């Protein structure tokens, strides 16, 4: 559907929205509009600049509903965002619904194990609210200020994914016509959010990876997890990715990790860097070949979090030692890690100890360009070789080449996320890399049966996308929601 809204109608819509929710929650000054023209981080010039006509800052569910109803009536696109958006595009002349002011933690239920949050709640806010409750949140692979729901709805890789599965239990969603409903058990009057679906289908799933295109989430219940009596992060070093995969697969099969993660050496050295470490650690990494670590530096480190009773944790540690040896690796003693890789040790301590993701300087090497796929464990061993080979062709100018990899759904699928850091202003190189990534996704799909984390074009998803488009038309007949989020190419259904 091609949307044509003339200026007069847009002005009328803006006026109505102001009257409905209050002028102080609406901004349309030129500076605000241009600073929201590209909402992906880094003002990425690879992404089209599309200036909205207004930015709305709802402070209640009613503000969201009123804005949606008016926008729908005038057929003005609405893009709902939190903070630190990754893959969202804006729409020229559309409305940005910036939900950052809706940032209350509404309920922490330690009996069932969920927290009810508003869409603007960040990981920092949630982790802080959970302190002292005996519960922790599934910290994602986002910096602390990123919104929990932003990651869940745009399919961040969610680092605590082994045992925790998806973070969402229940969503409250507003549709363009003003309908508000809950996807989980709270849909029944007086019932909490303890059950994601049943007796009806799992509608929450419709919103995950949908980038806001299926409805605007106004409230959510997210999983929280007990912070047990004893907790430990085991670090084991391996000289090959294949060995690291076998190691985690065996641990997962024996129900040991809450979470486990494979890091390549560029990443475990640079990801947790504090600014003061930049000058000491980064230069050597930038000069190196990421496929050839220095003597004695493990190619991969596997971090494995386990918790439970103290004797249980002690036993798990011993098991890790045995299994690591079986796969040609070794557990790295804490003292050794602190001495050899102090920034890494500090980073892990922060992430697993405080359940707070450190804002890492690693990000500031530049806007990364990342390639992400999911595959079955044996296929992923080949995918890693393939991806590493292709990344090496870009040369050292995109160093550090950082990857992490981790099992989903108890190891049924494994994610590999590999990224490089070309200079943010080198648009030509970035375009070249983007083109190459498309080719790599094709190869990964055909040769290794590995699926991408992000939409790569409806022609490759066939009937699935056709069905999805039919559902989208039913929920959002005027196609106003997050049109340029990338789910449906350039907003066209």
């Amino acid at each position, binding site marked *: 559907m091609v949307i044509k809204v003339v200026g007069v109608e847009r002005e009328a819509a803006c006026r109505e929205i102001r009257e409905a929710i209050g002028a102080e929650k609406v901004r349309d000054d030129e500076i605000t509009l241009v600073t929201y023209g590209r909402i992906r981080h880094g003002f990425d010039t690879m992404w089209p600049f599309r200036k909205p006509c207004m930015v709305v800052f709802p402070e209640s569910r009613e503000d969201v509903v009123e804005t949606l109803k008016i926008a729908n009536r005038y057929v003005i696109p609405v893009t709902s965002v939190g903070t630190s958006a990754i893959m969202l595009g804006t729409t020229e002349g559309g409305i940005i619904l910036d939900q950052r002011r809706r940032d209350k933690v509404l309920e922490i239920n330690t009996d069932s194990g969920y927290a009810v949050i508003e869409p603007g709640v960040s990981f920092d806010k949630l982790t802080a609210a959970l302190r002292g409750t005996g519960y922790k949140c599934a910290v994602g692979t986002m910096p602390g200020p990123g919104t929990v729901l932003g990651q869940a709805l745009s399919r961040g890789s969610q680092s605590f994914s082994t045992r925790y599965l998806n973070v969402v239990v229940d969503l409250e969603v507003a549709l363009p016509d003003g309908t508000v409903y809950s996807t989980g058990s709270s849909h029944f009057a007086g019932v909490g959010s303890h059950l994601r679906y049943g007796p009806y289908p799992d509608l929450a799933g419709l919103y995950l990876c949908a980038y806001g295109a299926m409805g605007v989430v106004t409230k959510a219940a997210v999983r929280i997890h007990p912070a047990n009596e004893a907790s430990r992060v085991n670090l084991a070093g391996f000289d090959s990715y294949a060995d690291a995969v076998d190691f985690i697969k065996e641990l997962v099969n024996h129900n040991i990790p809450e979470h486990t993660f494979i890091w390549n050496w560029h990443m475990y050295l640079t990801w947790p860097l504090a600014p003061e470490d930049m000058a000491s650690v980064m230069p050597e990494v930038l000069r190196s070949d990421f496929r050839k670590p220095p003597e004695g530096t493990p190619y991969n480190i596997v971090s494995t979090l386990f918790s439970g009773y103290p004797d249980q944790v002690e036993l798990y540690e011993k098991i890790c030692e045995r299994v690591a040896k079986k796969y040609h690796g070794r557990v790295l003693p804490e003292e050794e890690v602190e001495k050899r890789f102090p920034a890494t040790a500090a980073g892990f301590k922060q992430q697993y100890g405080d359940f707070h993701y450190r*804002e890492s300087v690693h990000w500031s090497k530049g806007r990364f360009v990342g390639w992400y796929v999911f595959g079955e464990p044996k296929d992923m061993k080949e995918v890693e070789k393939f991806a590493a080979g292709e990344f090496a062709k870009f040369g050292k100018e995109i160093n550090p080449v950082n990857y992490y990899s981790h099992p989903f759904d108890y190891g049924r699928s494994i994610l590999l996320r590999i990224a490089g850091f070309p200079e943010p202003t080198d648009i030509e190189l970035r375009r070249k890399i983007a083109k190459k990534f498309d080719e790599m996704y094709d190869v990964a799909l055909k040769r290794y049966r590995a699926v991408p984390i992000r939409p790569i074009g409806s022609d490759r998803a066939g009937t699935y996308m056709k069905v999805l488009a039919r559902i989208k038309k039913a929920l959002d007949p005027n196609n106003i929601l997050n049109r340029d989020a990338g789910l449906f190419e350039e907003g066209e259904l």
Partner: protein
Amino acid sequence: MRLAATLQDVQAAASRCLRDARCTYGSWPENRVLCPLYAHDPSFTFSGGGYLFLILALLDNKIDFNQSTAEFAFSCTGCLACDSNCHLFSAHAPYAGILDAVRLLRAEAVRKGFIPEGVRKVYDRVKKTGDYGHASALALPEKIRDDAAATVIFAECAHTPSQKEVSAAAVRLLEKIGRPVSVFSERGCCGSTLYDLGLWEELEPLVRANWARMEPMREKMFVFMSPHCQEFVVRRYPEILPDAAPVNGRHISQLLAGAFKEGRLKSRNAGKIKVSYHDPCYLGRGLGIYDAPRDVLAGLEGVELVEMARNREDSFCCGARTPGGYIPGLAEDTARERLREFEATGADLLVTACAYCRDSFRKVMPVKDRARVKDLTELVDERT
């Protein structure tokens, strides 16, 4: 930041912004909002990242430079909270802070002739006289004045009404301490105001002239009353003048803390009082001086310190030095917000260590309450 820098110089660093508002709030787990603009109007635009994206939009020709852009550039309070909390921008070339990028934006506005009304007065004066402010004549009592002394008092020019009173209290304290001191009087402004306001073309001659007079004394200990002057002279002079070496600077609060420790200043019991200490942005986040003022307060008999919720690295700005008009009432609203936080402590007195803060708070207080805001030097002078 080099005075010859251009917006292009910060383009790559600005492109690293994650748009995650990390620049706006302080330490975990409190996560308290520290950016006055963001506190006033939480949006990406009104954050350090908003300024960076504006620079990128200007470079990408998505918006024209105009009076409105200039007003926005000058609306940042310059509190340094962004630079204390976001480490992404500063980790790469040109290794500057977000606030430096804001100043660069201001310099660009001035170069293009878009000068907000609040800045125009300063600009015109500097154009006419080559300086801003008056050379201060800090009169030291003869018994401590010694031009060969190892300690030099940096006599700031008085941009603020409070400076005169702060200086007078400082002189009385120096007399009580009784050590020999000399005075360095600027020709006028040290340059920090011009630097902040983007009057960079006029800045270098001023700094060079001041440095020519300071250079022979650079082995001595310079004691500053204004954190703004101290931060600028100590940190920025060497950036601006390649031949300038950093001077050995101390804040008056450090001098006072040392004097208590050595027994040169003695507290007299002037009754019990609860005070709250406001960390000035440039003394705290700018220079990292948090303990000395608290040590001084601890040295005063009968004085009980009650901290505000936002303190030390997580202090909140007073709102001074906000000449832009993009957000009407921002300076006053910021001061009022801080005063509400002070009132919540139940303290009798709000103590600060910067004349700008003292002025900013007093400006928004009822006349009858204004005596409840004091500079640290004034309180110590009263109670020693």
